[in-house]
């Protein structure tokens, strides 16, 4: 699986400025809605489902990264967006550090394998420090998209 198989180009948020975890999630879901991924009526439900998942344990996995996610019937395939928060967001992460890179995933209820493969793809690239550094330095949505494409094509040095 490749990043651009599920990251929605139009929903990339290169300049996330928020003061809380909840606001970060709301902004990212709103961006997916604006990209036409689901109806406006579903936005609130998707946000609520992601926040409910966070209550079970933070998806701030450490090293400045969070992967908030949920299953939701409003999508018929796995979709995701990426946000870069230059100032960091307090995500109650496992290592206590703020997060700067966020991948938010929404998957159909009946496709757990796709969700695991998306996490695999994301983590594989995040283990490359160049990928993380370049992602955090991205200024525009196009910068982020180009970087994801380079990562997908294995064009980044390890």
């Amino acid at each position, binding site marked *: 699986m490749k990043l651009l198989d599920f990251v929605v180009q139009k929903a990339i948020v290169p300049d996330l400025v928020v003061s809380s975890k909840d606001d970060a999630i709301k902004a990212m879901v709103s961006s997916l809605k604006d990209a036409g991924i689901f109806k406006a009526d579903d936005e609130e439900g998707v946000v609520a489902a992601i926040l409910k998942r966070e209550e079970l344990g933070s998806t701030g*996995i450490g090293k400045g990264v969070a992967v908030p996610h949920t299953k939701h019937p409003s999508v018929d395939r796995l979709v995701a967006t990426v946000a870069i928060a230059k100032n960091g967001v307090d995500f109650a992460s496992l290592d206590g550090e703020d997060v700067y890179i966020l991948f938010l995933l929404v998957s159909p209820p009946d496709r*757990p394998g796709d969700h*695991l493969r998306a996490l*695999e793809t994301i*983590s594989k690239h995040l283990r490359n420090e160049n990928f993380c550094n370049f992602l955090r330095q991205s200024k525009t949505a196009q910068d982020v998209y180009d970087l994801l494409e380079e990562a997908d094509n294995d064009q980044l040095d390890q």
Partner: protein
Amino acid sequence: MNKSESNKKVTVGLTNGLHLRPQSMIVQAAQGFESDVTLSIEGHKVDAKSMLDLMTLAATFGTELLLEATGSDAGSAVEAIGGLFDSNFEGMDS
């Protein structure tokens, strides 16, 4: 301290596979031991103390993994983390 080695085959019993919550339970348990702890699928071996490592496993329901520990408390580490698999991560529903 004596170095010892311990290992056990474990199977993913969660219908959603080894997703983020069970992974974080493994990391938290593994970090409590001095021993190096790894999980592997068909030769792809990762550090059980690292979320980013565990996420690369993408282990679906029914997948068999090899749990290995090396260090002074290897036996206890395998017992604790093997126990998480055996209990389906303390009775997680899916």
